[in-house]
């Protein structure tokens, strides 16, 4: 990371971008697996057996956290761009860390629900 980038707002950008790309990469795979049902319930069920593996559960947790990160960082961006700033320079940097906490809280709730 070059020195001019090492500040919170840039990390928020990186978090939003990386989670967005990861989710975009996930979606086609999601649709592909859903499309297995077109081949019959047996095809889908054989995949759903795989989805019960612990590795899949961890990946699902990652997916939920990524979604939540993208959601909360995206909310900050929407707020910054659509709502007049209440004072000069107030770029809501103090939303960034709580956004991460909230994302991991969502992840924890997911884990509690699954386990």
């Amino acid at each position, binding site marked *: 990371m*070059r*020195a*001019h*980038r090492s*500040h*919170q*707002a*840039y990390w*928020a*950008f990186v978090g939003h*971008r990386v989670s967005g790309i990861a989710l975009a990469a996930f979606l086609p795979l999601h649709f592909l697996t859903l499309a297995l049902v077109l081949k019959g319930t047996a095809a889908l069920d054989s995949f759903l057996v795989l989805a019960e593996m612990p590795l899949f559960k961890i990946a699902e947790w990652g997916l939920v956290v990524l979604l939540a990160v993208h959601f909360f960082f995206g909310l900050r*961006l929407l707020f*910054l*761009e*659509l709502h*007049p*700033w209440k004072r*000069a*320079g*107030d*770029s809501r*940097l103090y939303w960034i860390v709580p956004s991460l906490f909230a994302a991991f809280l969502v992840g924890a709730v997911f884990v509690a629900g699954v386990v």
Partner: protein
Amino acid sequence: MDAVSPKSLSVRIWRGKDDGRFETYEVPARDNQTVLDVVTEVQRRHEPALAYRFACRVGVCGSCAMTVNGVPRWTCRTHVAKVAEAGEITIEPLRNMPRIKDLACDMAGFFDKWQKAGGRFTGTRNRAEPPAAVDPASRKRVAVDAAIECINCAVCYSACDVVSWNEEYLGPAALNRAWTLVNDERHALRRTTLDLAMEQGGCGNCHTQGSCMRHCPVGISPTESIAGLKRMSLLSFLVRDHAAADALAKTEEPA
């Protein structure tokens, strides 16, 4: 026997154009020393051919900005003590502009973008007319005041990664200028400036990385100005064929 040697500073300075190299100079470390002092000392005592820019030396002119240890800064207002790492400093020209020689870069493209963003003021009154009465507490004037102190040093332009990725992008300084004009009720071409700031390479390209506001030596937040332009462009799109747009256009006609 220990020789008592004065503390020295190891300064790596970029020499040449794009295919140049870093050269290291040793200069005495002093109690009160800015990075610009160091560059000047290198030029006076070690390397007379060293090219760099400065004028006022007190943070008014905006010509001495360079990349110091990877961060764009006014060298005249940067104390060595604040940035030196284990007695070393690395000084390069600003990013995102063609290098001319050593620490000087070609800022023509940067200034051209000010014009492209509609940054030229066009008054609504002539000198025979009374000056416009602008309420300093009005919402628009408060927005202008927050962004008006820019001195074109290009620190934000150098800090912005979107400028590096997209050479068409007008950059934080030019868009910040446009924001001051679209909020200036004395500016006759507010709609034109907004249209130019919304074009390809305009405000829509900003990714809100915030490096411009992080590094602006004056404390301006171009991110905020660009967010304002985005908001205004959205509104102008929503009402573009309606009475509100006509009313807006009317206010733009020179008196």
